[in-house]
Structure formats: structure tokens, C-alpha cells
């Protein structure tokens, strides 16, 4: 029976015909009641369950997922992790996440393939160069690593970038964050699921939450496609479906759902060893361990729950990429897909108790919540365990839309993922 992953267990299993491996998590039936139930088996929901068990000792927990683990945005995202945000509140959140990611493979005993290969955000115009300097200053003041690159610095890090005198998008410089990089998306979901299951959390797949059990104005549980389940507290991490569930719970959210698409090329030999983002062309790319160029860009402009992208945005993304990297013109695209993301007016997440007491929210991550999975899980677990905000989550409460204390990262750092 092999449960722990190590070089030794790999060797032992190799010699004994790979017969002793255990399923990574147990398939258990839904019990009628739990201390905490979490809706959504993406990275955010699974991380929440893990930290509830690990940090707070609350193990009578279920994660309820309508499809399969990580089949939402967690398994569809382009896996960029970074903390190059503008506002102190955001840097505290995303830097906590990056720090947790840095230790995660060891903590979970699961290789999440974190590759801190660094990220360049290109500046193509003098105005973008000034904005880059401003963001770098803000990041340094907020205590995270950031460096302002000049044109030479970009050339050194991105020799394949076409920045010559005839270039349409020359790079005058850019923002460098060396600790940024990528991680394996499925592994993050599966690693948290396996570790949570081991601590006693029930992971229930193929079970859709259909409604809330509301008694005395409080959320007391859920009605699911597999029957009712009761819980003292309920957490919700359903990304693009936040409004659908909020409607059932009787409130509205400051969320509009859009499709965000991505695509990958055929695999090629190593050619791009950093993550590159060009806010000006609305394109970003990295090369996966398999050799594929992973390409993403901006949101589709039409609100949507249809999990597929539209052509105009794909065209813009690819056109920008090929202008900057003419070598990629030979590549063939293998796959294109989209996920439904929950976009909030200030491009910052929503964390906190919902207008329905007993129901706690983790959502509004929009285009960038993969990098935030360890932090989002930590913070929702704290809320569910204590009923109170963590210092890092408090600024992200829903009340900011009434008080006007928005954390406008779209304006601050011009975020994309």
C-alpha cells in the first residue's frame, strides 16, 4: 500500500509492477450533516477544505462539485502565478499566495511543478514605460520583488522578441518579477484534494447544488442532486457561477460572467523560458513543460456562460503575439478553449460572509484566481472556522461596494491574469 510519494516509493512500485498505488482521494457518500460544506471543487474550494482541516482542525467537511475536480477554471487556466499588483491590499493577498505556493509541493507531498521562471510585462510606449515604473515602485514599497527593465534588459531575457527599428510593438522596457512563473493546474487541485481527503474531508463529485436550505433567515444547508445536506456553515467557491447560486440564495452580486479563452500550440523545443505579458497587445504566453506555447489574452466582450470563446478576441491575441514573436508564425494551434470567469468592477476578489448569514463567499477572481488559490483557501477557511475576517481578507468584503473603498487593480496595475 503506497500512500506517500517519494523517490523510494517510486522505485519500490517500479519493481513491484505499480500495483500498490492507492487512489489519491477516497470516494465517499454524502453524509446528511457536516460542520462545513463547501460548494465547488476547483482549486479554491479544495484548498479551503484542506486549510480547514489542517489549520483549524475542522475535518467534518464536504466539498461538493457538480462535475469533476478542477473541471472548471482551475483546469482551464494558463497557470501564471505572480504577485505584481499595485495596491497594498492586493500585494498582501497575492504575495501570501505565492509564498504558500513556494512550499506547496512539499507541504502536500504532491509535485505541483512550480516553475519560478520569472515574468516580463512589456512596455511598448513611453506612457507604458512610465506606468511600469510606477507599478515597480509600488511593488517594491509593498515589499515584493520587482525590477524595471530597459530595452536591453528585455532583449537579454527575451531574445526572440522582435524589437528592431521596424517593429510595430518595440519593447522600451518592462516589469520583471523573478518569483513569478507557472504551476501545474491539475496538480494544484489534485494535491489539495488528496491532502484534504487524507485529513478526513469528503470529496463528493458529480453532485450539483440546486438550492439553499434557509431557516430563520440563515443558511442551514443545501439541497443537492444527491439529496439534502445540513451544515453549520457553507462556503461557496464557484467562480463564473457565483451569480447563479447567489440568485438561489436570494441576493445579487457585483459580478458579470464572461468567457476567457486560451489556446496552445503544438509542442516545440525550448524557445521561451519566461512568462511574457504584453498589456498593450492584450496577449501573454509561456512555454509548458511539454513544449507547447500556452497563449492567453483578454476577456471576450460579450457576457457569457457558454464555455467557448469567440473569434475576434482570439484573432487579436494571435495577431499581437505574432507581431512580437515572428518565429511563432510557423506554429500550429492544437487546442482552444474557454472558461467562464466572474468579473467584478474593481477586478479584485470577494471574500467574506454573504448577505445570507451562514453562507461565506470566495469569488470574483475573474481572470486571475489560480495564482490566489493557496491564499483564497486560507482566507475562506479562516472565515468558515471563526466566522470573522482575517486581516488580509477584510478589505475584500462585499461592503466595499457600498462604502466605495474599491481596490481597483484594473486601473492600478492594468491587470490581466
Amino acid at each position, binding site marked *: 500500500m503506497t500512500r506517500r510519494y517519494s523517490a523510494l516509493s517510486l522505485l519500490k512500485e517500479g519493481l513491484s509492477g505499480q500495483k500498490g498505488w492507492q487512489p489519491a482521494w477516497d470516494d465517499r457518500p454524502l453524509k446528511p450533516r457536516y460542520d462545513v460544506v463547501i460548494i465547488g471543487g476547483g482549486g479554491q474550494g479544495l484548498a479551503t477544505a484542506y486549510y480547514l482541516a489542517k489549520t483549524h482542525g475542522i475535518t467534518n467537511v464536504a466539498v461538493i462539485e457538480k462535475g469533476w475536480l478542477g473541471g472548471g477554471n482551475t483546469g482551464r487556466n494558463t497557470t501564471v502565478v505572480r504577485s505584481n499588483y499595485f495596491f497594498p491590499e492586493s500585494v498582501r493577498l497575492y504575495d501570501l499566495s505565492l509564498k504558500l505556493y513556494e512550499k506547496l509541493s512539499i507541504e502536500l507531498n504532491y509535485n505541483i511543478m512550480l516553475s519560478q521562471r520569472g515574468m516580463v510585462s512589456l512596455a511598448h510606449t513611453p506612457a507604458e514605460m512610465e506606468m511600469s515604473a510606477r507599478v515597480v515602485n509600488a511593488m517594491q514599497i509593498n515589499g515584493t520583488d520587482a525590477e524595471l527593465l530597459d530595452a536591453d534588459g528585455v532583449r537579454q531575457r527575451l531574445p526572440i522578441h522582435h524589437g528592431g527599428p521596424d517593429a510595430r510593438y518595440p519593447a522600451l522596457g518592462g516589469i520583471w518579477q523573478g518569483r513569478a512563473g507557472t504551476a501545474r493546474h491539475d496538480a494544484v487541485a489534485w494535491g489539495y484534494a488528496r491532502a484534504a481527503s487524507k485529513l478526513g474531508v469528503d470529496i463528493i463529485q458529480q453532485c450539483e447544488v440546486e438550492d439553499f436550505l434557509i431557516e430563520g433567515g440563515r443558511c442551514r444547508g443545501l439541497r443537492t442532486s444527491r439529496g439534502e445536506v445540513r451544515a453549520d456553515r457553507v462556503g461557496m467557491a464557484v467562480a463564473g457561477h457565483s451569480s447563479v447560486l447567489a440568485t438561489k440564495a436570494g441576493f*445579487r452580486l457585483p459580478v*458579470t460572467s464572461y468567457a476567457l479563452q486560451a489556446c496552445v500550440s503544438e509542442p516545440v523545443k525550448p524557445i521561451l523560458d519566461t512568462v511574457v505579458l504584453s498589456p498593450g497587445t492584450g496577449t501573454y504566453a509561456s512555454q509548458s513543460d511539454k513544449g507547447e506555447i500556452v497563449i492567453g489574452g483578454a476577456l471576450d466582450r460579450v*457576457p457569457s456562460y457558454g464555455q467557448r470563446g469567440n473569434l*475576434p478576441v482570439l484573432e487579436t491575441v494571435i495577431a499581437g503575439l505574432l507581431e512580437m514573436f515572428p518565429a511563432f508564425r510557423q506554429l500550429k494551434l492544437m487546442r482552444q478553449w474557454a472558461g467562464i470567469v466572474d468579473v467584478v*468592477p474593481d477586478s479584485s476578489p470577494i471574500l467574506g460572509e454573504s448577505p445570507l448569514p451562514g453562507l461565506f463567499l470566495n469569488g470574483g477572481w475573474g481572470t486571475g484566481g489560480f495564482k490566489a488559490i493557496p491564499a483564497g483557501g486560507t482566507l475562506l477557511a479562516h472565515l468558515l472556522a471563526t466566522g470573522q475576517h482575517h486581516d488580509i481578507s477584510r478589505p475584500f468584503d462585499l461592503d466595499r461596494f*457600498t462604502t466605495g473603498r474599491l481596490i481597483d487593480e484594473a486601473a492600478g496595475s492594468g491587470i490581466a491574469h
Partner: protein
Amino acid sequence: MQIFSCPFCGPRPETEFHFGGEAGNDRPHGGASVPAQDWAAYLHLRHNPKGAAREIWMHTTCLEVFVMERDTLSMRAEPGQALGGHA
């Protein structure tokens, strides 16, 4: 490329249109006497329906604003209707 239909110009490519918000989200009257909650609801809270939606769109080439009924899951869009004074 999806085709949307402007009530004034007819069928045009989606890139000529701009999403203007949910229809029926009326601005509260009363200025400073309107409670913060009502302003917040008007400015930020959305139904964001999965399926049938009634939305305000602008055709950015003729600059007309109109109502469009759309299904946000199938992406089927009905021809736009001119605003009859009230959304």
C-alpha cells in the same frame, strides 16, 4: 464572428457593438437622499442571468443605444429593439 442586429443598421459584426448593461437597471431618483445601499445596488449589483437576458447595447458605428434579448448560454441573440422611451 457573431452577428448582432442593430434596429437601425441591420445585421453587423459583434465587434461593432458595446455591452451597456442589464435593461431595467434604473438610476435611483433623489440625489443625496438616496441611501448608499441603493446607489451600490444600481452601480454594482447585477442579476447576471444564465440563459435569457434583456440587455442594453450600443452600436458603436451609429451610436444608437437599444435593447437586445439574448441567451447567455446558447449565445443566441434576437434582433435589437429601439428604446421606446423606457428600457
